[in-house]
C-alpha cells in the first residue's frame, strides 16, 4: 500500500446554513487502492460527506477541519485537477447523463478538460472497450436501459482517468441483474486498474463481497464495520433462502381480473404483453416479479385503466377507488412542503389533520414536515409518496417498485403498512425487483416472462420451487423475521 492515503480527513465536519452539524466532526482514512464502503441509513449525511471530496459539488454551508486527497488539500485543487483526480457518480441514471448519445457522453468530460482529439479518441476507445460499450456506442441514451445508462456514466467518468472514484448509491435505482453487472464492473475497475473506489450505500449486502473495508456513518460519526470481503462468502447467501410466512387467503371473486391482454406501444414494436392473464384477490398482496423491461409497469397501468390494451379484457371492480404509486415519486409531488403534500387530497378524501400527523410519524417524516419534498432524500421521497397514497384510503393499491431506494427499516415500515392494509381489505398489486420483500410480504407471486404470466403461485410455493430466482437473506429479511416472524 502506498504511504499517501487516498483520502485523509481530520476533524472533518459540515453544517448547512442555519443548521446543526450534519456530518462530523470525524476522522476518515481511505487507503489507496481500497474498495471502501460507507454504510448509512437514508438521510444520514453520506451524500454530504462524499460531496465534500469534489470542490465543485460541495453544497452551500460550512466545512470544518482538514480534508486531503492523495496528500493534497481538496480546496487547493483547481477545477481542472479536481475534475480529473476525483470521479463522481451519483444515484440517478436518468439525470446525470448530459448528452443525447452514448459516444458524446463518454467524451463529454474529456471535451470539458480540453484534451487533444487524438488522446481523447484513444481514451474513449479504451474505456468503451473495457466496459463493453462498443455495441451501443452510437445509440441515443434514451434507448438505453437503466443499467446501461449507469454504465455509460461510469465509463464517462473513468475516461477522465481519475485516481479516486466516488459513488453515491450508484445501484439504488437498478434492478438486481443490472446491479450485479454494475458492481462487477466497479470491482474490475478497483482490482484491475487499481483505482480507489469509495461507495456510499444504505444496503451493503450486495457490495460486501467486493469491498475491502467498510465504515458506518451514523449520527454524523464513522464507525468501522466488520464482515467485509472474505468474512461472508457468496455461497452462504445463495443457499439460505427466505421462508415465506403468509398463507394464501381464499376469496370468492377476484377484485381485478386481466384476461388475454395484448399491449404494445407502436404498431412496429414487439408486444410488451402478449396474452397476459392475472387475477388479484380482494384483500391480498399480489407481487409481480420479472426482469427489467418485461412489462411490469405496463401491466400496472393497464390494470389502472390508463393504458388501453389492444386486445383482451380488464375487469377492475375497484377502478373508482384506486391509487398508483409510480416508479418516480416526483410524479406525485405538487406542494412546497412534506406536510402540505400529505394535506393535498384532504378535501377530496376527507381525512383529518391527525391522520396526517400520524402518517408523518409512522414513516419517520415528522422531522421533515416543513422541508420541500425535493429536498428530502430519495428514500424519504418514496415513503412520502406512499404515505400520500395511503391517506387517500384506496381500495386498490397499485405499486411500482415500492421499495426502491429504501433501507431495511423503511422497508419494514412499508411492509407492515401493506400487511395492515391487506388485512383491512385493500387489494394490493405490486411490481417489484425486491425478491425478499416479495417473498415475505406478498401472498401470491406472478412471474412475468416474454409478455406472459409464466406462473402464478402462493409466495411460499413460488420461491420454494425456484432455483435461480430466489430471495437472499438480506437485512430486511432479518429484521422482518425478528419483528414480525
Amino acid at each position, binding site marked *: 500500500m502506498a504511504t499517501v492515503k487516498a483520502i485523509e480527513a481530520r476533524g472533518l465536519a459540515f453544517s448547512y446554513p442555519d443548521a446543526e452539524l450534519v456530518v462530523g466532526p470525524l476522522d476518515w482514512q481511505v487507503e489507496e487502492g481500497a474498495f471502501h464502503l460507507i454504510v448509512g441509513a437514508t438521510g444520514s449525511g453520506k451524500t454530504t460527506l462524499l460531496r465534500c471530496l469534489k470542490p465543485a459539488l460541495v453544497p452551500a454551508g460550512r466545512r470544518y477541519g482538514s480534508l486531503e486527497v492523495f496528500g493534497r488539500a481538496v480546496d487547493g485543487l483547481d477545477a*481542472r485537477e479536481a475534475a480529473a483526480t476525483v470521479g463522481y457518480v451519483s444515484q440517478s441514471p436518468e439525470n446525470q447523463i448530459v448528452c443525447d448519445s452514448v*459516444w458524446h457522453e463518454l467524451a463529454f*468530460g474529456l471535451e470539458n478538460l480540453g484534451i487533444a*482529439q487524438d488522446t481523447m479518441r484513444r481514451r474513449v476507445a479504451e474505456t468503451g472497450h473495457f466496459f463493453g460499450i462498443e455495441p451501443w456506442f452510437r445509440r441515443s441514451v434514451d434507448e438505453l*436501459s437503466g443499467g446501461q445508462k449507469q454504465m455509460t456514466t461510469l465509463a464517462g467518468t473513468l475516461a*477522465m482517468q481519475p485516481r479516486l472514484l466516488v459513488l453515491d448509491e450508484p445501484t439504488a435505482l437498478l434492478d438486481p441483474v443490472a446491479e450485479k453487472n454494475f458492481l462487477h464492473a466497479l470491482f474490475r475497475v478497483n482490482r484491475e486498474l487499481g483505482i480507489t473506489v469509495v461507495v456510499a450505500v444504505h444496503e451493503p449486502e450486495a457490495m460486501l463481497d467486493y469491498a475491502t473495508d467498510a465504515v458506518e456513518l451514523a449520527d454524523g460519526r464513522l464507525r468501522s464495520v466488520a464482515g467485509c470481503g472474505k468474512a461472508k462468502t457468496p455461497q452462504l447467501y445463495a443457499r439460505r433462502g427466505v421462508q415465506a410466512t403468509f398463507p394464501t387467503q381464499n376469496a370468492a371473486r377476484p377484485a381485478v381480473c386481466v384476461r388475454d391482454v395484448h399491449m404494445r406501444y407502436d404498431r412496429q414494436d414487439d408486444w410488451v404483453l402478449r396474452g397476459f392473464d392475472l387475477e388479484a384477490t380482494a384483500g391480498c398482496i399480489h407481487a409481480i416479479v420479472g426482469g427489467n423491461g418485461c412489462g411490469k*409497469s405496463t401491466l400496472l397501468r393497464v390494470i389502472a385503466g390508463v393504458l388501453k390494451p389492444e386486445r383482451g379484457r380488464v375487469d377492475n371492480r375497484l377502478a373508482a377507488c384506486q391509487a398508483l404509486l409510480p*416508479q418516480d415519486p416526483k410524479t406525485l*409531488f405538487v406542494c412546497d412542503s412534506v406536510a402540505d403534500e400529505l394535506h393535498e387530497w384532504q*378535501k377530496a378524501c376527507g381525512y383529518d389533520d391527525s391522520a396526517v400527523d400520524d402518517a408523518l410519524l409512522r414513516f419517520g417524516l415528522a422531522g421533515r414536515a416543513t422541508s420541500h419534498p425535493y429536498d428530502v432524500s430519495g428514500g424519504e421521497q418514496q415513503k412520502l409518496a406512499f404515505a400520500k397514497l395511503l391517506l387517500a384510503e384506496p381500495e386498490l393499491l397499485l405499486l411500482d417498485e415500492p421499495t426502491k431506494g429504501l433501507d431495511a427499516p423503511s422497508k419494514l415500515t412499508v411492509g407492515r403498512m401493506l400487511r395492515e392494509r391487506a388485512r383491512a381489505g385493500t387489494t394490493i398489486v405490486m411490481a417489484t425487483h425486491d425478491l425478499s420483500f416479495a417473498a415475505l410480504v406478498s401472498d401470491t407471486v406472478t412471474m412475468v416472462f416474454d409478455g406472459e404470466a409464466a406462473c402464478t403461485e402462493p409466495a411460499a410455493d413460488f420461491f420454494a420451487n425456484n432455483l435461480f430466482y430466489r430471495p437472499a437473506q438480506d437485512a430486511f429479511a432479518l429484521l422482518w423475521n425478528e419483528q414480525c416472524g
Partner: protein
Amino acid sequence: MRTAASKVRSDETDQTGGMRQRRVDAGPTAFDAFHPMVSLCYVTAALVFCMAAMQPVYLLISFAGAFAYGIVLRGPRTAVRSLAWQLPLVVVVALANPLFSASGSTELFRIGSRAFYLESFAFGSCMGLMLATVFTLFSNASRVLSSDKIMALFGGFAPTIGLMLSMTMRLVPQFVRRGSDIDAVQRACTAARPACAEKGGTRRGYLRSASVLMGWSMEDSLETAAAMKAKGWGAGSRRTTYRRFRFRRLDALALAWGGALVLVSVAAAVAACGQFRFYPIIEGVAPWWSYLPYAAFVALPLAMSAKERARWRP
C-alpha cells in the same frame, strides 16, 4: 434493423415508468458515407436552386426529386401523407395569386370589373409548388443532417452551441415523456379524484401537471448541473470536440464533382430562366437538354440510394 430498434425500446420500459414515446425511425441515408459538409453543401444548393429557378420545368424537377427522395428517406406512407397538406397549399396559393396580381393576357373570367388571367394562375401554381418543395426539402434535410452532423459542422466554431443542441435533443423527448407519465398517474389515482371532479377540475388538473413537470425538471436540472460540474464543465480553458467525421479524399472528390455539376446546372438554369417569362404570355421554354444537368443533380441522392439498395439485394 427495425426489430433490433424495437427490442432496444422495450428494454426501456422500467426506467421511464412504462411510458415510451414514439421515436422517429432513423435509418441510414446515402449521405452517411460522406462528411457532413458534403450533405450540407448539397442541401444548401438544392434549396437555393429550388427558390431561385422560378421556371415551371425546373420547379417540377425539384419537386419530383424532393418527393422521390422523401419516399426513400421517410417511406412512401409518410411522404404521401405530407402531400395531403401540401397539395391544398399549392391550390390555395394558385388561387390567391390572381387576387393580387391582375396581369397576363389570356383572360379566363371576370368577377365584376376584375379580370382573372391564366398566366396569373400559372404563376401562383409555381409559387405554391415551390413552397411545397421547400417544405419537402427541409424535412429531407432534417433526416440527412442529423443533430450529431450539425454539431460536427458547427461544434468547431461554437462548442457550447453544439452541446446545447445535444442537451436539447435529450431534454425535449424526456419532457414529453414525463408529461404523459404525470398525466397517467393522475388519472390512475381515482381514490383522490373528487378533487379533480369539482368545477374547473380539468383546468386545475392541467395546471397541476404543468407545475409538477416544472418542479421535477428544475430539480433534475440541478442534478444534471452537478453531474456536469463533476465532469469538469467550465474547468478547461478551451473545450475540444470528439469529432467522428474526417474530411477525406472521397469527400473532396464528391464536393468537386458535385460543384462542377452545380456550375453547369447554374449556367443552364440562368439561360433557361432568362428567356422564360410568365407575363404577359407564357413563353420561352428552353429545349429539353438544358434541364439535364439539374435533373442529374436532383437525382444524385436517388442514384446513390438505388446503388446501395442494389448492392444488398439478394
